[in-house]
Structures are given as structure tokens and as C-alpha cells.
């Protein structure tokens, strides 16, 4: 959906502030897509209630990442054991399941590949509104 926020200059950054939704529009554990101008962003709300924002286009085959899902990343301490990370959250592409770290935008499988990294955006919640700096 399109962003509904007004634009505000962010101090000294050259970025503009876009209010994209209200807090209650995205429940914890969900991700939604928004369009601001000609940019598409995926706004993810982690299970702790905080937000992360990344580009909404998968660098692989241009799928809409906001149609995918988020989760605490599956990790392992030894072969044959699985647990979910306490700190890392990933966005899964709805098509091929490629993972993207919601802190860095990088694919944890190929962290050294900048061409496979999503752009990340600063996000804040003020007075119940979710604002993204683009």
C-alpha cells in the first residue's frame, strides 16, 4: 500500500521522513509492504514489538519480500540440533525462501555479497506513528 505520511526533512541527513502507518497496523511477527514515491519498502515488526525496514524487492528474482514472512533465525550449536536465535531476525522471500538479516539486510548465507544485500532504512515510532527515513 502507499505511504500516507507527510514528508519532513531529517536534520542534516538529506533523508526525508515518511510516516507509513500506525503502530497497530502491523502486529508483532508480521511484515507489510508500502510504497513511498517510487520506492517500495518492507516494514517488519519483530516479536518484541520493534520495527525494521528494508527494500521490498528481492535481489534474486524481484519478488515482493513483504509477501514473505519474518522469524527468529534458525541456528545450531552442533550438527543435528536446531534452535531459534535470541538476537537475529530474518525476512524470508516468499518465492525461494532466501533469508535476509533484518539488521544488516545481508543474506546470512552469503554475507560477503553486496549485490545480494537489501538496503536498510532507519525507522522510528512517534505518537503511535511508524516513520521511515528514505
Amino acid at each position: 500500500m502507499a505511504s500516507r505520511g507527510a514528508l519532513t526533512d531529517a536534520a542534516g541527513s538529506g533523508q526525508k521522513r515518511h510516516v507509513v502507518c500506525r503502530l497497530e497496523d502491523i502486529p508483532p511477527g508480521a511484515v507489510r509492504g508500502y510504497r513511498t514515491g517510487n520506492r517500495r519498502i518492507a516494514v517488519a515488526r519483530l516479536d518484541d514489538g520493534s520495527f525494521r525496514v528494508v527494500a521490498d524487492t528481492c535481489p534474486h528474482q524481484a519478488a515482493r519480500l513483504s509477501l514473505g514472512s519474518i522469524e527468529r533465525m534458525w541456528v545450531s550449536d552442533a550438527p543435528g540440533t536446531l534452535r531459534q536465535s535470541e538476537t537475529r531476525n530474518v525476512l524470508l522471500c516468499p518465492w525461494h525462501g532466501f533469508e535476509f538479516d533484518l539488521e544488516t539486510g545481508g543474506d546470512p548465507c552469503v554475507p560477503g555479497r553486496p549485490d545480494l544485500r537489501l538496503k536498510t532504512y532507519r525507522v522510528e515510532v512517534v505518537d503511535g506513528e511508524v516513520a521511515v527515513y528514505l
Partner: protein
Amino acid sequence: MTEILRGERDGRRQEGKASKASVVDVDIHEMLTSVRDLAPYLDEPWRSRVDVNDGYKGPPGNPYSFPQPTGVAIQDAVTDDGSPAGSKLELVQEQVLDRYGIENAILISLFHPTDNQIQPEFATALASAYNDWVLENWLERDERLRSSITVAAQEPRDAAREIDRVGSDPRFVQVILPAVAHHVFGRPFYWPIFEAAQRNDLVVAFHQSGGTRTAVGLPPYYIEWHTAISQAWQSQLISLIAGGVFDEFEELKVAMIESSWTWVPHLMWRFDYNYRSLRREVPWVKRLPSEYIRERVRFSTQPMEYPEDPGDLYRMFEMIGSDEFLMFATDYPHWDFDSPEQALPHTFPRALKEKILSSNARNFYGF
């Protein structure tokens, strides 16, 4: 120009045809004349199982009849007394080691008690006897030779004890496992073998055996089986990575012998691509599969594939992204033997040929 060939035997330097390059051969097959050769190296009750006329004949072999004139062997390796090609050290010396000035060669046993699958204590005893037989009849008789430790992998803890028993001898440079189709060795059940190999600073190598099958088992003709069997090595390699063997044993090195190698780019690309989608299933695999392969796995040249344009072969090599992954092998005495003077096409740069013929193996095995 005639020069002194590298290598000494019995205190005499071997003179002959000029040696153009230093050569290490990572695949020569030493053969028993019969399993009764092992009798002196077995204790009872196992000795009697082999040392009788109608006793045990050995692990199951390749089930195909060979269509070549002299069976599985090249014709000039056939012995005059009916014993198997590869069973006489003198002939191996004459036809391979001396002829090509091979500095070191690794013996790859085709005697795989792992293929027995049954009578595990007997299989373990056979493996131990075979290692003692190799030591006395091959390694003690030619200092150019190195060898592989034979094990009965169906009893991994006993296999590990055998690795510990002989693994301190620097002439044993690796543990040999058959590229079987009925199990994958990446399962934790087999980890005592990898743990012991790492503990003794030994490579773990895979080679075909009587238990090697294609993805569809045993197709009607030998040519079908021989064309398709690299699938067995592929499955074992995939298993080692997906099972976390390289993560669990961080110093472990693996050699794929006689698997061919031009399939490696395909496997790396497909495995890496799948890893990005399916990592969640095996999160203990910490890196891209291709990274383990480039850093920890080596392949033998033989059997080489020969595309119509030899430049294609070099391009395949370049696609793998490492000039260290390939090691020369003759596969003597078998019908698909490769000569060190002819195996690598002219499209391979000279310095690269030197690495493939010698230093890649030396660096990998550390001799």
C-alpha cells in the same frame, strides 16, 4: 636429454627416459592374489575362515563382466601366472613408478570389508590384516609408496581403533572408504572414523568398490554403470557437508578418488543455490557448500573427460575457482589408466600442470 630420474630404490638410482615433470600418483591399486594372502595376518577364529579351499573368497566385487579383452586391466599389466594385474610390485615399479619417474604414489585398496555388511567382527579383522599385508608386502619394499588405511566402516568404533593402530606410521596417509550407495557417511554413526582420521592427521578418501551403484542401482550394461557412478561420490560429498562433518571436524580433509571432477561446478552451483533456500533445515552448516569443497576437498584427475574442444576442459577447471583442487592419478592397472605425460591437455598452463602432477598432492597430504 637424458637425466637421472627422481627416486631411488634399493640404493640404486634409476636411470632411463627423461623425466619431464615431478609426478605424484594418488591412485595405484595393489591387489591380493587371493584373500588367502591375508591368512598369515589373521588370528583365529578368522584365519580358518579364509585359509581353506572352500572358505571365504573376499568382499563382494564388481558384479559386471568386463567387456575389454583383458578384463578390468590394461593389457600390458596382465601377469603371466594368472595372478591379478596389480598384484606384483615388480610390475608396478616397471610399468608406472620407474617408467614415469613417479616420486611418490598412493596405494588405494580395492579390498573393502565395508562392503561385507555382515559378520562385522570378521570384517574388522580382515581390515586389520589387510593393512598389515600392505605394510609388509608393499610399503616395506618400495619407499616411494604411501598407502590408505582399510577399515570396516560398519563398525565405526573398531574402524577408529584400527586407524589409531596404524595411523602413526607416516606411510599411511589416508583412510579409504568405498563410495557406496546404501549409506551416506555423513551420518553421525560414522563420525568415529572422521574423528580418528583427524586425530591422526589423515585424509579420508572415497573410491569406488563392489558396492558402488548409480542413482538407479545396477543398470544393464557396464558402460552405463561406469558412466554414471560419479553419482555415488556426489551423494557422499553432499552428505558430508549437509551432515555437518566439516563443521564438526574442522581439520578434516577429504579426497575424491576416481570420481572424475567435471561435475564439481554443477554440484557447487546447485548446492550453494539450495543452501540459500534451505539453510534453515541444516543450520549447523555454517558456510556455503562450495567453500568447504574448495578448502577441504581434493579430486583426482583420472578418469579425465575429453571434450571435443580441450579448451572446454580448462574452462571447467577454472569454473571451480581453485588451482589446488586437482591431483594427478593413473589408476594403474585398470583399463582407463591415464599417463602423466598425456592426461592433461595443452590448454592447461605449464605451471598449473606442475601443481596438478605433483605439488597439489604434496601440499594436501603433507609428504
